[in-house]
Structures are given as structure tokens and as C-alpha cells.
């Protein structure tokens, strides 16, 4: 390229000639306000991530994933056994995790301290009384199967266990160890929970005695008396919580 060319270029391009030099960069420091904005954004973003992450699990489609989902649905696809656990089997797990410390794994309790569940009149009759006790707890003294329990205290479980878990555990204690009472469904527990929503503290023996022994939970089946002809134990109750027990 010879020099004449550039001169020509130079003449034509007035715009180029007059323009300012290429941009440069200043070195002003960050303002404190900006750092505050960063902090807020990082905090909000992090909080959002923590709140709605669903534990980064590929299967939790719902952001506020409820822990109860874990109970039945373990593996994807084939693992049918875990998904198909009967309510009583699920109840057994919940029982051993939460209740067996006091009532013992065999359901016999501890003499003088923790009442038994096996054959207990509070367990094997109507479903209302046991559900009341599990939901709101109980404070002694109390008489079960003729034995006196002066200081028995049971904590309320309504904050800790979901309706489905309470129903499962009730179904379990009412059907194992020779007990033979009708299963309880989550809806029934939910209804009772709603009914008792305003109730402040634990029950006393008098409260429970006020409820007829064979009173059942609302929304359930009518015939919940123990059926003499039914098989004693071992055979799992009907696999679905809502199924009607066979009519005598």
C-alpha cells in the first residue's frame, strides 16, 4: 500500500479523523452500596436454592418436597416391594422408630410405667380413642387392663407425624400381637385432627372415659367391632387403607 492511498483514505473519512480515541477504563473502587446489593442477592439466591431445591433429587418434582414421600417410594421402576408395603407393615416401621422405646417392640409396655397395647381396651375397641391419644398425647394416672399407671405421660404426635403415618401406626397396633381391630385411614385421622385442632393439651383419663369405648373415627366404616371369626394374626389386613373390612 503506497502512501498516496492512505492520504486519500484520510481525506474521505472525516468521521474517522474527528472521532475520539478508543475507550479506556477507569479504576474507581466498588461502592459499599453495591457490595450490599451483592450480599442481598447472594443471600436471596442461596435461600431460594435451599428452600426449593427438593434435595437435588431427580425424583422430587415438587420443590417443597414432603418427607413422607420417602416412606413408600424408594426405588424407581422395578422395586415393587417397597412401594407395595401394606399399611400395617409401614406402621410397624413407624412404631419401632417412635413408639417402641416406651411401649416396647412386643407392645407389652413396661409394668407400672408404660401401659401395654396388647389387648388394651383403649386400642382394640373403637378407633376414636387411640387416635385421640396418638394425636394429642396423654397424661396419667391411667388404668389399663386393670393395672394402674400413675405417672404415664405420652407426648402428642400431631406435630411430628403425618395423618398417613398415624393411620398406619394405628392400623399396625390394632392388628398385631393378637389385636384384631379394623384399620384406620389417613382421612379419618385428618378429620379427627381437624376436629381437635383447637384442643390445647394432652388428654386425661376422664376425657377418654367420656368417649364411648367403641366410638369410631368419623368418615370410616360402621362395623368396627373385633370380629371373632377373623383369623387371629399374621395375615396382613386388607392392603389398602380405605378398603371395607369384610362384613360378618
Amino acid at each position: 500500500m503506497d502512501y498516496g492511498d492512505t492520504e486519500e483514505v484520510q481525506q474521505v473519512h472525516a468521521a474517522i479523523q474527528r472521532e475520539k480515541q478508543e475507550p479506556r477504563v477507569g479504576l474507581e473502587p466498588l461502592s459499599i452500596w453495591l457490595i450490599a446489593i451483592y450480599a442481598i442477592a447472594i443471600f436471596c439466591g442461596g435461600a431460594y436454592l435451599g428452600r426449593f431445591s427438593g434435595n437435588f433429587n431427580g425424583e422430587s418434582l415438587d420443590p417443597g418436597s414432603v418427607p413422607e414421600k420417602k416412606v413408600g417410594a424408594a426405588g424407581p421402576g422395578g422395586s415393587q416391594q417397597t412401594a407395595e408395603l401394606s399399611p400395617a407393615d409401614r406402621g410397624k416401621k413407624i412404631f419401632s422408630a417412635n413408639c417402641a422405646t416406651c411401649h416396647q417392640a412386643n407392645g407389652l409396655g413396661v409394668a407400672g410405667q408404660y401401659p401395654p397395647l396388647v389387648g388394651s381396651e383403649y386400642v382394640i375397641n373403637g378407633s376414636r380413642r387411640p387416635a385421640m391419644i396418638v394425636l394429642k398425647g396423654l397424661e396419667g394416672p391411667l388404668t389399663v387392663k386393670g393395672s394402674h399407671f400413675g405417672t404415664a405421660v405420652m407426648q402428642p404426635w400431631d406435630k411430628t407425624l403425618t395423618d398417613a403415618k398415624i393411620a398406619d401406626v394405628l392400623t399396625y397396633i390394632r392388628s398385631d400381637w393378637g389385636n384384631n381391630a379394623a384399620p384406620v385411614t389417613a382421612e379419618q385421622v385428618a378429620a379427627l385432627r381437624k376436629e381437635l385442632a383447637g384442643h390445647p393439651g394432652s388428654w386425661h383419663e376422664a376425657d377418654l372415659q367420656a368417649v364411648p369405648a367403641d366410638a369410631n373415627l368419623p368418615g370410616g366404616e360402621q362395623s368396627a367391632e373385633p370380629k371373632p371369626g377373623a383369623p387371629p394374626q399374621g395375615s396382613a389386613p386388607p392392603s389398602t387403607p380405605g378398603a371395607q373390612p369384610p362384613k360378618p
Partner: protein
Amino acid sequence: MKGITPLILGIFGTVAFSWLGLAYVPNLQIGHLDPQSDEEGTDIYPMPKSGMAERGRKVYVANGCFYCHSEQVRADYAASDIDRKWGDRRSAPRDYIFDRPVELGKMRMGPDLANVGKRAPADDQNAPPNASPAAGASPATTGATNAPAAASPPAATASPAAPTAVAPTAQQSASPAAPAGGSPTTAQQPISPVAGAATSLEGSRSDSPPIYSAAWHHRHLYSPRNLNIDSGMPAYKFLYDKRRVGGQAAEDALTLTGDEAVGEGWEIVPSYDAKCLVAYLMSLDQSHALKEVKSTTPPSPPAPGKSAK
């Protein structure tokens, strides 16, 4: 910035990181799902669509239906999709494993179509009539409709009202011929006529075919506002042929009334593309229960032995 190397590395690093996080890892998590089945290996869901329906998907895509229609139901806590009877449960990744391209949609200028095939009257016949609006979408009915349908097609065809009609499930190509001679009984009982999406479409003429039946789809595609004055959908008349009746009228000809009626001796028949498109629409059905999704309707009458958690 002085060095070129950190710049280039950073540029590649950031995009690689986002690709790993939003494409690669999720693909490990939900990119290799199998259809679910029960212990006997029957009742498989989902199933691949029929050839006609797959071709219909191409028509659906080519004409940009997915810009106005979504194919996903959101959970009850997040939106009112389920209240609108667009489905019984939220959609899950497993619902889409055979879809290609998958058309989740980004806008709803038209109603959601995730379950439009399930809402067809042919399926309703299998379900016990259910008066209660809330229970109309319960898993009991869906389980009932699907279990026999997938397991034993003869049982479904034995259903009295629709011997010819559309297909118990997705696999079967919905023959548009069927509803043209469709039984009048189906007209009586479209989906629950309560508030909701369906209602708006029903404020239409008395002579309209049962809603979401194949005949209804054809008429709706041909002339949306002939069926529903409030519809904002463009007409897809180019998918239909107008021709002279030769001999006797084609059995798949559209029954048109009002200003759309064609003159004596003429008839409107769906092209093959239109038939495929309708077959595709009729195949859209996510009502089958999925293990990983809790049904949002209370599990009071759960499907026998399945997925009530």
C-alpha cells in the same frame, strides 16, 4: 484484563459448568426412564404412539400448535390446572419418554392438551358415571378406565355404546369415521359440566358432536368459531378437502351447519394429515397413575392395590 488464557478458560469454564448442571446431570437423573408396569408386566405406561398419531405430531409441530397449547399439567399447589380438569395429577418426566419432539408449550392461548385424548367421550363410557365434580377426576375412574383398556382390549370394545369408536388407548389410531355415525348416547354425557375449561366449549350449538370426540376435533379444526364463538384459534381449513360427492357421501365427511354448511352435492373430508392430527390429539392422555406422582385428589377410593401413597 491482561492475560488471554484466563479469559478463554473462564469463557469455556462457565458455559461448560452450566451445560453440566442443566443438561448433563439432569440427563443422568431423568434422561433414561423406562415405562412403568405392574408385577405381571402388564398395564404398561406409557406406550409409544401409533404411526398415525406420530405422523399427527408432525402436523401438530408443523402448524405451530404448540405455541398456543401446552401439554403439561402443573401441580395443584402451583396452579389451577387440575381445578380446570386438565388432568388428575401433575405431569411427570415419565409421561413424555416416547415424545419426540416433546412439546411442553410456553403459552396458553388455548387450553392445555395433556389429557385431551382422555377427555374424549369414548373413554368416558368406560368409566362409571360420576356426578360429583371433584370425584369425577379421581384415580378410581382413571384406573378403572385404563386397567381394562390396556390389559384386555376386548373388554373395552364390548362396551355397548361404542363398538366402532375410538380406541381405548393411545395405541390405536382413532378413526375419524367412527363418531360420524357416533351413537347419540355419547352426546348426553360429556365430561362433567361444571365450571372449568370444558364448560366454555360447551356453550355451543346443540347439534355439535360430543366434545373432544374425533368428529368434534375435525369440526373444531375446520371451523373453531362454528363450535365455540369465543375460540381464538385459527381455522385449519387447508387440512380439509372440499370435493363433489361421488356416488354416496364419504363416511368421514364433516357434518357442518350454519354458515359453514356446504352446498348440496359437495362435502368436506379430512385430509390424511387432518386424520393423523386428530389421532395424535386423541392419543394425548396422562391419566394413568404414576408411582412417582401423588395424585392430588384424596386417595379415599384408591385404585386397587396401586400407587396410593
